[in-house]
Each structure stands twice: as C-alpha cells, then as structure tokens.
C-alpha cells in the first residue's frame, strides 16, 4: 500500500483575525523544509492598525468576559498539547513548557476581574470629594517573545497584556517560530475579536525598530530583547513616550499586568 501522503500546513501570519502571508511575499526557513513568512514593516503597520481598531471593543468587554476568553485559550491550547510538544521538539521539557503555558493562560484569566480590587484604591482626600483610582489598559502593546522558550515566552507576554484589556502585536521567536504560529490557531478559536492579538514572524532586526518607533504603540514588553535591542527600543520609544517593560524573570505576577496599565483617578464632589 502506498504510504500516506500528509496534507502539509502552510504557516501564515495572524493579523486582524486572519491567516495571511507576508504582503512582501517573503519567507525564511529556520526549520528544515518549512517556509515561514518573513513579515515586513508594512505587515507590522497593518497589525498595529488592526490592533488599534480592536482596542475599544476589547477594553470595553467586561472583565469577566475577558477572563472567559483567556480561559478558552487555555482550553484550546490544552486540547492541542501533543501537537505543541511535537513542534517544540518532543520530550519531557516540551511537555513541561506546554503545561506551563496552559497554566499561565489559566492564571491570568483568573486575574481579569480581580485586578482592580488589588491594584485600585479609594483615596481618602482631605475634602468633600469621592476619589478613586482604577487600572485601565494602556492600549496597543508590542510583545517581543523570548527566543526560547518559544511558546511559553510568548504566552507569558501576551496573556497579562490581554488580561488587562490591551491589544497585542507579538513578534515571535525568530529561530523557533512554529509554536507561535500554531498558537495563533489556538487564539483564533478562542473568541478573541479580530485584531485583539496579532502574531508576526520574521527577522527581529527588521521589525523591532519599527515597533519601537511606531507612534500608535503604547508599550513594549521587551522580555525577548537582547541588551542592545532593549537599548535601541527604549531610545525609539521616546518618540511617543512609550513605556518599555524589560525586567521580568518569567514569574507569574500581577505586576506583569499592571506594568502595562494606566492608573486613572476620578474626583467627584460630595454634596446634597
């Protein structure tokens, strides 16, 4: 009997809820035999625009609903556990990485409707005013994933950003992009509205300068940057006073969420 001929997957970028090739038509081959799209500056701009358009809707969802969607992503990822283990090279370490990625999604899903109670305050001002401070998403967040762990690093970047109500443009691991593009399939089936999370693959040195300098990006999680890339991103960030979050040792922490949030303070008089 003739051997089975498998139907191979074309790996694509994930932009605005759609799987697309790079508009540049370019690809690179970090993994033998697989063409991975090499996103261009234009792809990056398209992704930022899609994210910005999606921002009000996602930020406007109830905290509970955002938690449900993130939890759904954990379900979808868990269901494809074996596929991810295979893409990560197999073996126990790969299994542990997938489990940790699932755990991160579940953990941050649970934070969405608790964060304001932990990070917000009611402020006892010296006057007849009711005054409170609440966290709000900062906007479009660029997530630079770590080269390794390729899956866990990406999930630890996007999950806290999304939990806080931000929208994300993620740059995947350059040397190991496949888990990121397969994660996009997980995200695509988790009820995130189009544009809320976008995943790009390609050369970091080609994309990072434009992400750092983009005037409609509000923050960058630079966990995956080298020291030189970080310095360059921080310098470019000054163009529109973005914040660049750099130091995170991979631990799950609510500050990973609040680092990408604004604090809004509201005053209202008290009177009859």
């Amino acid at each position, binding site marked *: 009997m003739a051997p089975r001929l498998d139907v191979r997957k074309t790996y694509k970028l994930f932009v605005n809820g759609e799987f697309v090739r790079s508009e540049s038509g370019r690809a690179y081959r970090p993994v033998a035999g697989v063409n991975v799209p090499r996103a261009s500056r234009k792809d990056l701009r398209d992704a930022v625009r899609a994210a910005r358009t999606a921002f009000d809707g996602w930020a406007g969802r109830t905290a509970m609903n955002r938690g449900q969607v993130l939890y759904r992503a954990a379900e979808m990822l868990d269901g494809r556990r074996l596929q991810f283990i295979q893409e990560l090279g197999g073996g126990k370490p790969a299994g542990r990485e997938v489990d940790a990625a699932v755990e991160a999604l579940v953990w941050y899903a649970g934070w969405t409707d608790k964060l304001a109670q932990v990070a917000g*305050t009611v402020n006892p001002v010296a006057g007849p005013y009711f005054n409170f*401070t609440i966290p709000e998403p900062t906007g479009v967040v660029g997530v630079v994933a770590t080269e390794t762990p390729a899956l866990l690093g990406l999930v630890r970047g996007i999950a806290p950003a999304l939990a806080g109500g931000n929208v994300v443009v993620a740059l995947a691991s350059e040397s190991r992009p496949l888990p990121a593009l397969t994660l996009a399939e997980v995200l695509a089936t988790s009820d995130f509205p189009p544009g809320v999370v976008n995943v790009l693959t390609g050369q970091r040195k080609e994309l990072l300068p434009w992400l750092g300098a983009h005037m409609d990006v509000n923050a960058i999680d630079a966990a995956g940057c080298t020291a030189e890339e970080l310095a360059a991103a*921080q*310098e470019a960030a*000054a163009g*529109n*006073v973005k914040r660049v979050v750099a130091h995170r040792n991979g631990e799950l922490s609510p*500050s990973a969420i609040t680092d990408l949030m604004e604090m809004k303070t*509201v005053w209202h008089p008290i009177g009859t």
Partner: protein
Amino acid sequence: MAITKRSSTALAEHRFEYEPAPEAIDHVNIAPRYGLFIGGKFVEPRSGKWFPTINPATEEQLSEVSEALKADVDRAVTAAASAQESWGRLKPSRRARYIFRISRLLQERSRELAVVESLDGGKPIKESRDVDIPLAAAHIFYYAGWADKLEWAFPNRRPRPVGVCGQVIPWNFPLLMLAWKIAPALAAGNTVVLKPAETTPLSALLFAEICQQADLPPGVVNIITGAGKTGSLLVSHPDVKKVAFTGSTEVGKLIQKAVAGTGKHLSLELGGKAANIVFDDAPLDQAVEGIINGIFFNQGHVCCAGSRLLVQESVAELLLAKLRDRVDTLRVGDPLDKNTDVGAINSRAQLEKIQGLVESGLEEGAEIYQPPCELPAKGFWFRPTIFTNVSQSHRIAREEIFGPVLSVLTFRTPAEAVEKANNTPYGLSAGVWTEKGSRILWMTERLRAGVVWANTYNRFDPTSPFGGYKESGFGREGGLHGLLPYLGLN
C-alpha cells in the same frame, strides 16, 4: 443687609474698586547669594558660576544662585550615594520621624515659604499661601507615614529602595513639585539629588535649610541649582539609579532617550492639553467657576490646566456670556496682593512663548476676548484670554500654551465630546460637567487621561495619584501608587 434680586443685579453691574492689600515681606530673609546644598552643607560651586534669580513681577534681582556643572553634580551624586546605604538601612520608623519633622517645619515656616514662592515665581500669594505650601506639607506628612508601612503596602513583594534619585522639577509649583518628588523617595529609603528650575530656585534652597533644621543625615537630600545643562548632567550620571522628571514633553523625550539602555528607573510627568467638557445640563455657574479655576489658576502655568473648553452647542452662547462676565472680574497684578487672582508670568521666555501661540491663534482665524484690565508697567504679564471659533487643527487647540489662554470648541453629542477630548497626543487630565451621574461615569471610562475631575477641576491631594497617559508620561505621584516609582519590588 439682605440683598434683594434688584440690588444683586445692581451689584453685578458695579465694578468694585480694591485698595491694595499687600502681604508684608519684612519677615523674610533672602540671602544675596546661595551655594549648592550638598552633604548637608551649603558649598560654593566648583564651576565658579552664578546666575541671578529675579522677581518676574518687577524684574528685580532677588538673589544669586550657583550653576552646578560636572564637578558639582558629581559631588552631589557622590554625597547622595554615600548616604544611601545608611539611610536605606535606617530603621523605617526613624526614617518616618525625620520626614514628619520636615513636614512640621514646612508648616511652621509656611508664611515665609509662601512669600518666597510668590516673589520668585510670580504666583498670587493667596495661591501659594492656601494651595502650594499646605499641599507640600501635607504631601510630606502623608509619605512620612508610609516609610514604616511599605511591607503592608506591597505584601509578598519585598519592597526595597532603588538607590540615588536624580530629580528635576519645573517652575510652576516649585515647592509642591519638590515635595511630590522628595517625600516618596525618602519614605522608600532612597537619597536624592534634586534640581529646581532655574527661574524658581529659592524655595528649594529654603527647603535645604529646613533639612538642616530637621537634622536630616547629611547627603540624604541634596539640592543643586542650574538650568538644562545641569539637569542633563544629573539624569545622565552613572550613579543615579532613578530619574524623575516633571516638565515639558519635549524635554521628557530627551530624558527618556538619554536614559535608554542604562537600566535606570524612570518616571515622567509631562505636558497636557486637557479638555474641560461642559454638557447642557451642567450647573453652569459652578462650571464657570471650574473653567476659570481650570485655566487661570497659577496663570495657566499648570500641566493639567483645562486649556480646551468643550461646550455642548446648545448652551455655548449662554456659557460664553457668563464666562466673559466672570473673566472681567479677575484681578491681574501684584502677586503679593492678597486680592490678586492672576499674577505674573514666570519668565520673559514663557511670556514670549504665550505671545507667539496667541498670535498663531489670531492668524489661524480664532476670535480673541481679553478683559480690559490694566497691567503693571514692569514685569511679565499676560491678560486672561479666551479664544472662540477654534478648530481642532489650530495650534492653540493642539499645543500646550502653559499660560492663561483658553481655547473654546463645541460639540453636539457625548460621543463627539469624547472624540475631541481624546484627539491629542497628551493624556494628563480632563473635566466633565453634567448633572447626570451615569453620563459622568460613561465619560470617565472613555477619556484617555490620568485624572478626571467631575463637576470640579484642579483638585489635588497627597492621597490621590496624579500622572498621565500617552505623551503626558508614565508613573504616578501621590497616593499608594506614588510609592511605586521609588521601590524595587518582586
């Protein structure tokens, strides 16, 4: 005597004449020359350079202060660095006591500080006396209490000092901005080198005397004077671990660039172009007071000033009539007069910047209204100004003027108000005036700004976090959140 409706109308038409009511200044001693405050002592600058600080209301020299250059900045940072370890390890309750002492000393010397603030900066004495100095003292008192409670503020996160803080502050609220910077830094266990603005150094130098009076350990607080060059040397100094800056967005971006790649902590409180939004159901007379306070408080030298008035079209005419009447009653003049509402513009450079932007408003077709008030012959002055017929593309609707100039725009629907309010790279503050509670919260959710005042404006409190979205900066000052920029946390 009860005022009948008829006589109150008569009163409204009457223009009151005011006798001068100047604040006495004979109890204030300003030295002819100040050194730098480094390591607990006033020292001569190694740069050998001095520059004058003048009273912007008279253009007379008040004193001469040092220009700190490289050797001086090095010396100040070294003093702070050598004090850092012992201050950071001091029993937190003892740190608290020093900071409490400083707050009390501010209260005890409040009148002197208020007069110096008005002399050096041009702000009305009633504002320095009733706002700047009390708020500065309260701010320090508030953070003093945090010094030994940090573990309760951030449980499980092992709060610890970040190290020497280089702090650069503006000239609009000199002592208050100093308090906003120094109080949380010290409470968190850091030492500081602070540079006040070159036009308003005096209250910071009096504060240095207060640190001596409080027996604060030498080097915990260092005050260096100078202009942009001094500030640049300070924030770039390799031993400075945390940079805090309040000032223009333009300079903030330069600092962010300078700090890139150094691993320094950074917080920025930058410019603003706040929308003050008035709906047709708002209590208009109260709103008028809020608009006036929003833009003319401190001559409009306020980063969170309500410089764009957005009025719902249906009440625009009525509101503007009320606003013009109210502006006519503002008293512009001698900052030391207790009846003065609008004092002197802080410097000639700032006056020229305001004049340039106002000219652009006229050239671009906006209509100007200024009350017919007399201005003193000497000093830097600008009439309270209201621009109508302003479009969103006008420079006076986009750029921070930092002066007593209001740009008025109109809107029809709440959605349009939000759209226009957020149509700016800034995001520091906003105001909303309406009697409808649900609309206040709806607006509040959508306004991209760090502080939203509903049916009030320009309120400040030590417990209330302040700071901006977008190009207005990051980090908060005040409240529990105000500790975050000064702590390392797990």
